[in-house]
């Protein structure tokens, strides 16, 4: 925070900090041109906000101790009654009069608005696309031009609701490309290995990819395809694999 002396059109300099009272700071500034002085006084809340930054206004004069702020701010025992800031505001704004308690009753439903049962779980069940029986609501499933075999359908239905449309659309795109009419478990598995960017792999390159641990193989596959795309190659050959290997050897 800076202050500007509007007479001299210059920043005022920070001069010193004093504590005029408990929980307050007086921060002094002076104009380097006209020597005008003023002091900004913080309330307890503002004082604590500044100290929570872990800084001392004007700079440190002694080294910070380990966990200085944590240890200095942890409360030894719970305060009884209102917090200090609430008490301060009450004193300054309401002259110490107790505030009127806020109404605690929930607001009534507006006319025409469906009133909630108040049950947190019913909203959650609805959000998950489940019926009251706990079974998925078929309304959430996208209409399909393909016939899904029962086992493939079951596998699809077991996916989380936010994943299901993406998987369905990806598998069906693959099936469309291959000219399939029925989606089986095999089609689902094959679609996973289908490259979305039209890249094909030679058997030798596929074999070399199998040397990579299976849990990071998809990442490696994407990396190789990215390099091939950068070089304008549509087929992953042993040469592309060598290029990728070379690239990573440079990081060693």
């Amino acid at each position, binding site marked *: 925070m800076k202050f500007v002396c509007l007479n001299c059109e210059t920043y005022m300099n*920070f001069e010193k900090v004093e504590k005029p009272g408990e929980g307050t700071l007086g921060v002094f500034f002076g104009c380097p041109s006209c020597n005008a002085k003023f002091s900004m006084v913080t309330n307890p809340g503002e004082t604590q906000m500044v100290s929570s930054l872990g800084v001392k206004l004007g700079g440190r004069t002694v080294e910070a101790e380990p966990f200085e702020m944590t240890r200095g701010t942890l409360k030894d025992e719970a305060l009884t009654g209102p917090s200090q800031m609430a008490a301060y505001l009450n004193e300054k704004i309401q002259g110490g009069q107790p505030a009127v308690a806020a109404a605690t009753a929930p607001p009534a439903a507006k006319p025409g608005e469906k009133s909630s049962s108040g049950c947190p779980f019913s909203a959650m069940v609805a959000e998950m696309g489940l019926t009251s029986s706990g079974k998925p609501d078929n309304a959430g499933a996208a209409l399909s031009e393909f016939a899904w075999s029962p086992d493939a359908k079951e596998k699809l239905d077991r996916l989380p609701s936010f994943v299901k449309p993406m998987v369905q659309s990806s598998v069906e795109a693959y099936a469309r490309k291959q000219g399939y009419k029925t989606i089986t478990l095999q089609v689902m598995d094959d679609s996973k290995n289908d490259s979305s960017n039209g890249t094909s792999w030679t058997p030798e390159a596929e074999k070399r990819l199998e040397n990579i641990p299976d849990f990071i193989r998809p990442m490696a596959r994407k990396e190789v395809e990215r390099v091939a795309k950068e070089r304008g190659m549509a087929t992953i050959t042993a040469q592309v694999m060598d290029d990728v290997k070379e690239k*990573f*050897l440079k990081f060693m």
Partner: protein
Amino acid sequence: MAVEKDLKAILRNLKYSDDAKVLAQISENTKLVHARMAGITHKLVVMSGKGGVGKSMTTVNLALAFARQGAKVGLLDVDLNGPCVPRMLGLHGQSLTMTPEGAIPPVGPLGMKVASMDFFLDDASPVRWKGPMDVSPVWLGLMEMNVIREFLADVVWGELDYLLVDLPPGAAADKPPVIAGFIPDLAGAIVVTTPSEVASDVVQKSVTYARDIGIKVMGMVENMSEYRCPSCGEVNELFEGNTEAMCEILDLPLLGRIPFDRKLARTFDKGEPLLDETYPTIQRYQEIAGRIRTLIDYKKVLADKL
């Protein structure tokens, strides 16, 4: 009558100086964090958008797995309001030793160094801050972030191979990804979920948010995958979810599945953790730790094996 001044024009001609030394101190604090973290080779955070999925259990067991493999390991529990790592490791009641060089952390099983808010609290005491703003959410947020900054800057970790940071629960515009952003040269985040669809939904949001702010999400651990009966040993599913499909969509490796294991959980509840590396669930943590090492060395693995 006073002449109206154009503040914008005045400011254009002025040069800012940090004469109250606020920016200098904030910069100094950041340098302290960097200096303290410099001796640590790999820094990992363990996070989840969802509470109650077993982040602390996963963090502690992964830390023990790395230590069992001969690594020097530190564990930082930054769940300020629900710290449980010291209790799980039998360190509850101990404290950080304050020295002019910084705070020396207690040493737990397998030589693991541990720091936690629990070391500042009495039995059954919640975290309560004193001062006029003790109930202000804005101030609490600022305060907690700076307490975490002190944990990163003031604990004397020394030379470590791994520092694992157990983050508090929370998804999007919340602390966890921001805390992770404090840590210089972070190797990445390990995300913990359960197969429950509700957990998956929240967890994938936290992955998206973490990536948005530039945190590398390394992989996912599925906790509570199944339940192993302590009497007959039969294994049953606890939820009907599909973490594998979620990982595929999020383009993340599934690092492993951990069953809900009552026997193992009980030992941590009592602060006497089971350390037997031949125990089946512990072996799963060992495998996950091995996969994390592979991910850290991803470029080397590709260079060697492709």
